[in-house]
């Protein structure tokens, strides 16, 4: 037997739907605050550090990219310029690196130092590019063996800095890179070790040996300058 109450449809469908939507919204909110290390996002506060800007970038604020580029672009370009010793290649690698940073922004751990992270990506991109360049015929000279001469160091503004830049260029690449990261770019020994994929001890050793070589070179160029 069917009662009159059974024949009247109760408005449970929309109610359940609203309840489900509310629960889903609440779960999303809770999950996003659990999944993030730094709690709920506060949009109206100006980020204090580069890492905070990166967090905004990860959250979809593409405007934060401009700030990140302004801070990191010159350091990254300087690093790549000394690695490649070629302005055009360094510029290409800057572009490639930022494209990779964009693709990998979801795997950036909030709060992790950003500069070593980006420099490590840039270094890997450089190594890949160098490996491919070895087998690319267009990078060879007409006889097919010798690479075309590369140049294009940045314009130099003082003799002392010029001498240092030149001496740094003449160092073995491993020493030059360790000095570049720790003394010029400003990374700690630990961060430089991570970027280079080696131990702290190895970085200290490279910096020390490079430093001795650098001093010797600068002294000899200084002596030559005085004698002439």
């Amino acid at each position: 037997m069917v009662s009159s109450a059974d024949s009247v449809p109760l408005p449970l469908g929309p109610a359940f739907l609203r309840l489900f939507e509310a629960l889903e919204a609440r779960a999303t909110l809770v999950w996003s605050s659990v999944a993030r290390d730094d709690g709920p996002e506060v949009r109206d506060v100006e980020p204090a550090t580069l890492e905070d800007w990166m967090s905004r970038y990860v959250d979809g604020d593409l405007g934060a990219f401009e700030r990140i580029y302004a801070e990191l672009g010159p350091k990254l370009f300087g690093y790549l310029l000394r690695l490649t010793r070629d302005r055009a290649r360094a510029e290409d690698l800057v572009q490639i690196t930022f494209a990779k940073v964009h693709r990998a922004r979801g795997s950036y751990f909030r709060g992790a130092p950003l500069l070593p992270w980006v420099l490590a990506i840039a270094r890997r991109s450089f190594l890949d590019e160098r490996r491919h360049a070895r087998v690319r015929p267009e990078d060879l000279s007409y006889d097919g063996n010798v690479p075309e001469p590369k140049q294009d160091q940045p314009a130099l503004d003082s003799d002392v800095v010029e001498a240092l830049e030149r001496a740094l260029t003449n160092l073995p690449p491993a020493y030059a890179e360790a000095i570049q990261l720790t003394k010029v770019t400003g990374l700690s020994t630990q961060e430089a070790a991570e970027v280079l994929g080696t131990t702290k001890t190895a970085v200290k050793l490279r910096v020390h040996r490079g430093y001795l070589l650098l001093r010797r070179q600068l002294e000899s160029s200084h002596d030559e300058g005085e004698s002439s």
Partner: protein
Amino acid sequence: MSDPDFEALARRRPLPHPRVLEAIRADLAKASPEPARALSRGTRLALSVLLLFAGFAATTFGDWFERGALWFLGAAGACFSLGALVLSETLPGPRTRLGLGARRALVVSGVAVVLVFYSILADDYVTLAEFFGGGSRGREHVSHALACLAHALVTGFLCSTGLLLVWARTDPFTPTWSGAILGLSGSWLGSLAVSLGCRATEGLHLILGHGMVAVIATLAAALLGRKWLRP
């Protein structure tokens, strides 16, 4: 001669051509503006442990009843505690982790521990000639060891691959060593899973069938990690 003036060098900041920024902006305009699906380190760790547990439970299901639930829970608990500890201390994250030297030592000693453990666990040894030699006894030895190795490899590879996917693109620094650590964790699991179901106590069988997975899965995951863990 004074010390090299690195600060002067650091102050000189060569700038890329403005067209570089324009090109990057054009790339970004084409890319998705949606927020990235960023998983925190804690979430990835939790997923990893869950994955290890699921892999272990699935591949040892039939052996639970034979060995007893307590044995199973004890072995699984020890394995996952150790795995979670190793992963949390070695994989990339916001704070400083173990140095590269310590992680290298961990991978090498982790593989060695598995092999030494089985060599200690063995009750008896047959000679290499007897193990690999012809005859029905030799064939039995080899086929049994291969069956165990296949079981361990399937479990180890499934778990290692899952772990590599969970941690994909997270390590621009030392992806090879991070891959090796993930492979080692998966291989521990594979080794434990096969040991639950096999009661053999012969030394060569244990080392080749149960322990060799640590070497193979660690090496394979290191190679895969080089590709998959890099951004």
